[in-house]
């Protein structure tokens, strides 16, 4: 976790969450869900009767362990230097260093301590609860519900909280029979919602977080304000691509892509919320679910009117959730939204009146006389919806309100002192975000089941939004699509999503690693390496008519080849990936904008690119690699290889710097990566000799400028 130290709170939370998601996948891989893993009691003998209640040996052991752990923990954290240093790390990491402490080791130990305690609880729980990955993981909600009572700091508080929670769960279980109901609302799942309800209530009872003026992180990389024209073109390209690819797909594949786009819109809903305004929500799919349910139960005809109703309902619910969330930030906000997601899962979506038969069937869209009749049609509708919403968001970001959101993210205190109404801004952005997520549900055009709306489904949405580059519309598309296609992509890819994305990001932006994603918004690389960002960067694609035309021609040729079944669908997919990530980024060097010179070896590169695309398209991916997940990984690897080779042929190294052969002194430190020998030659040309190298730099510079003596 060292790498994310100093990053935004959102990024920290999301990295932790993605670790959790990845571990879930790994656990499911090792212990498949369809096998039972029964465990016996640790202590099978011994019973104790206290006031008529029978306590088994196992439970006595649990209670005893809890008490011992609490006492020992308190002693460690209050009484030992190591424990106090663990708390000091939270306060000020670098100050601990300045004191001579070792913060890295200290935090590692506190993570280890936390993890081992969790493992102890797992061992003790194993006999009480069937060990199954996702329910056990979601016990984290119970844990937080208890710990928040002590404001995540006090051990006695957490202890008291856990006793109250345990009693509440037992009482609710005992007093609500299987068919209990409150009016039309069935209460049979109330017991399972208790931890979420308690978590929500306890968080609401927390005193308001005082607005604190913290010093700004100086080195934070500003998030670029998106370009409206680029967004518009991107939208058109997206719709064209979806039409092109979708028309080639088989029915099941279209359905998968449909699902992916639903997720992409849900991910898009996080762009204004998390990306622009720095709020966090772990409940986006709950809103998607509300949108889907509204559409399925009222708008079964598919009339577009009901889409707007669904959006309005979601936005109202979003605003309602936001109201209590206003006072919260960071981890408390994340927890509150997680509690909301769990509550809705058990108490809303499980109601038979809400989702009859635990399914919600969202119809295809109908606008007046126009009626969508197939998955393909709905896919185009979703692509259009995504493009439109994305463009609205970009326009919003560029508007006064968008600036206000960003200002709120950067410094709530400054906003408050300027007289900005934080409350209405927050409610507004939550409502907007919920509305977008709801639209994703209402336009989904497929059948949902209850489990689609659980917290465990929402977590990856938030994760992938950040990984894809939060605050960027393109990142949302990438993140959402990846999640939607995850069932195909199998566990390996999902667990490795972060790695894959970083590769993609690197390729998409040669020489520019400054994407505001997992890079944590701060310069982590050694400063000397950072400097290379400013060198030799290729210009953007937009002003390059010839390059764009070439890309369109290539895409059209691939589409025709696939349409005439000259190449297989997977060949087309691979070729498109290669086109997007290995070919497009170097086109500006080959077909430069007017007034700029071509760079690198243009002729061989152009030939190579055509060959690369053709070979990629013709490889029989589907027959060569059986598993879809590994096929995707192979395609990505192939793309990386292709991109590196392209750069090699062109004479660009992977960071986008130009290799200059035949050193010119003009290039020193500017636009080139010189080897030592070349540097010496260049240095000699300007009159640097051994003697000069031995004096301090300022003196040497002074001499070189012609002034000083040696």
């Amino acid at each position, binding site marked *: 976790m060292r790498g994310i130290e100093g990053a935004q709170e959102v990024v920290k939370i999301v990295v932790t969450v993605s670790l959790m998601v990845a571990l879930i996948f790994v656990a499911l891989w090792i212990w498949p869900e369809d096998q039972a893993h029964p465990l016996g009691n640790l202590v099978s003998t011994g019973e104790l009767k206290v006031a008529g209640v029978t306590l088994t040996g196992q439970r006595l052991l649990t209670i005893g362990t809890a008490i011992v752990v609490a006492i020992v923990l308190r002693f460690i954290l209050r009484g030992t230097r190591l424990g106090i240093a663990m708390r000091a790390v939270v306060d000020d990491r670098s100050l*601990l260093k300045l004191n001579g402490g070792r913060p890295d080791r200290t935090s590692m130990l506190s993570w280890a301590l936390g993890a081992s305690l969790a493992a102890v609880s797992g061992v003790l729980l194993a006999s009480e609860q069937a060990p199954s990955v996702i329910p056990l993981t979601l016990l984290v909600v119970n844990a937080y519900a208890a710990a928040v009572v002590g404001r995540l700091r006090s051990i006695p508080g957490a202890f008291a909280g856990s006793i109250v929670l345990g009693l509440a769960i037992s009482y609710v279980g005992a007093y609500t029979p299987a068919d209990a109901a409150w009016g039309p609302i069935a209460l049979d799942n109330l017991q399972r919602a208790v931890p979420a309800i308690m978590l929500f209530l306890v968080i609401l009872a927390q005193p308001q977080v005082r607005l604190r003026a913290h010093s700004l992180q100086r080195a934070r990389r500003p998030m670029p304000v998106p370009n409206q024209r680029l967004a518009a073109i991107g939208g058109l390209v997206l719709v064209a691509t979806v039409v092109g690819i979708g028309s080639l797909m088989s029915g099941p594949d279209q359905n998968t892509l449909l699902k992916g786009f639903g997720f992409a819109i849900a991910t898009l809903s996080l762009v204004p919320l998390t990306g622009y305004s720095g709020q966090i929500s772990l409940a986006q799919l709950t809103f998607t679910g509300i949108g889907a349910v509204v559409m399925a139960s009222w708008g079964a005809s598919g009339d577009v009117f009901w889409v707007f109703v669904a959006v309005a309902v979601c936005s109202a619910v979003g605003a309602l959730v936001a109201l209590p969330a206003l006072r919260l930030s960071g981890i408390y906000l994340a927890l509150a939204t997680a509690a909301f997601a769990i509550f809705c899962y058990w108490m809303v979506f499980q109601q038979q009146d809400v989702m009859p038969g635990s399914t919600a069937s969202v119809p295809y869209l109908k606008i007046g006389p126009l009626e969508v009749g197939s998955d393909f049609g709905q896919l185009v509708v979703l692509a259009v919806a995504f493009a439109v919403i994305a463009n609205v968001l970009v326009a919003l970001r560029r508007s006064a309100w968008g600036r206000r959101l960003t200002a709120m993210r950067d410094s709530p205190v400054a906003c408050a002192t300027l007289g900005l109404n934080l409350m209405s801004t927050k409610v507004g952005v939550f409502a907007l975000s919920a509305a977008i997520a709801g639209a994703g549900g209402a336009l989904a055009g497929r059948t949902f089941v209850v489990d689609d709306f659980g917290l465990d489904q929402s977590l990856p949405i938030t994760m992938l939004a950040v990984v894809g580059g939060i605050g960027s519309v393109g990142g949302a598309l990438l993140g959402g699509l990846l999640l939607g296609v995850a069932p195909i992509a199998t566990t390996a890819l999902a667990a490795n999503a972060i790695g894959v994305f970083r590769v993609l990001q690197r390729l998409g932006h040669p020489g520019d690693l400054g994407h505001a994603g997992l890079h944590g918004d701060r310069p982590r690389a050694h400063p000397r390496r950072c400097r290379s960002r400013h060198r030799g960067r290729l210009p953007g694609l937009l002003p390059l008519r010839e390059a764009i035309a070439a890309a369109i021609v290539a895409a059209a040729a691939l589409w025709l080849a696939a349409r005439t079944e000259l190449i297989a669908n997977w060949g087309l997919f691979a070729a498109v990936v290669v086109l997007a990530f290995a070919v497009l980024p170097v086109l500006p060097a080959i077909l430069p904008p007017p007034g700029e010179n071509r760079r690198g070896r243009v002729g061989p590169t152009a030939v190579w690119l055509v060959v690369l695309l053709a070979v990629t398209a013709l490889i029989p991916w589907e027959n060569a690699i059986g598993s879809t997940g590994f096929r995707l990984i192979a395609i990505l690897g192939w793309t990386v290889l292709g991109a590196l080779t392209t750069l090699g042929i062109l004479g660009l190294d992977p960071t986008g710097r130009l290799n200059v052969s035949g050193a010119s002194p003009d290039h020193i430190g500017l636009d080139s990566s010189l080897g030592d020998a070349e540097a010496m030659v260049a240095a000699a040309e300007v009159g640097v000799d051994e003697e000069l190298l031995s004096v*301090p730099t300022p003196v040497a510079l002074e001499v070189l400028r012609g002034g000083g003596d040696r």
Partner: protein
Amino acid sequence: MSAQIPGSRSGAASSSKPLLELRGVTAAYGGIQVLHGVDLEVPEGAVLALLGPNGAGKTTTISVACGLMEPTAGKVYMAGADVTGVGAEELARRGVVTVPEGKGIFPNLTVKENLLMATYAGVDMDHVEAVAYEQFPRLGERRTQVAGTLSGGEQQMLAMARGLAVNPAVLLLDELSMGLAPLVVEELYGIVARIARTGTSILVVEQFARTVLGVADLAAVMVNGRVRAVGRPSEIENELSAAYFGV
């Protein structure tokens, strides 16, 4: 021309060898270079005041000296040994005490727990407490109070108490006076003078020159990432006003 070159041995106290020495240090935040070749020497047992306007690179110089930041080029020497790239925690254990700008304490720990953190430098807790409470009786009264609830002056005293108790070889102080009342500042600089008398070499960064110049043996003026002049406080007054007023 070479007379103007910063760091060329022009100081008064150059007879004794430097305990802390920066040679041609450059440093950068991301792509932005902040220090462009800083040469600076703090002679043994001397107090050197590093002065200069906002953005001159004073705090960055301290960060490099205390090991929190690695220079992109140049060397840092402590008592003649090359310590370039040695981590802050290692330097702290070797007797460098740094009081960073405006936040030398852990706000969520109690006063006593804060003092306990000073023991990493190799002194025992009884000694730390004895020195701290003797010097600052007010801290003694508040030993179980959470440090974040102390007043600004008391917080700075707590930070300084560490410097006193550890008996460091080098003390690095960044903007000691920030946000404090003049009386408190006087008191704190009284402590600085007392620490100096024990033979500790001190590098103190200040934006407001007057108080610190009363304590300092030497002063260096920093502008735009370079040391523009070094000398006795009386010698550098012109440079100082030029630096602040851009004359």
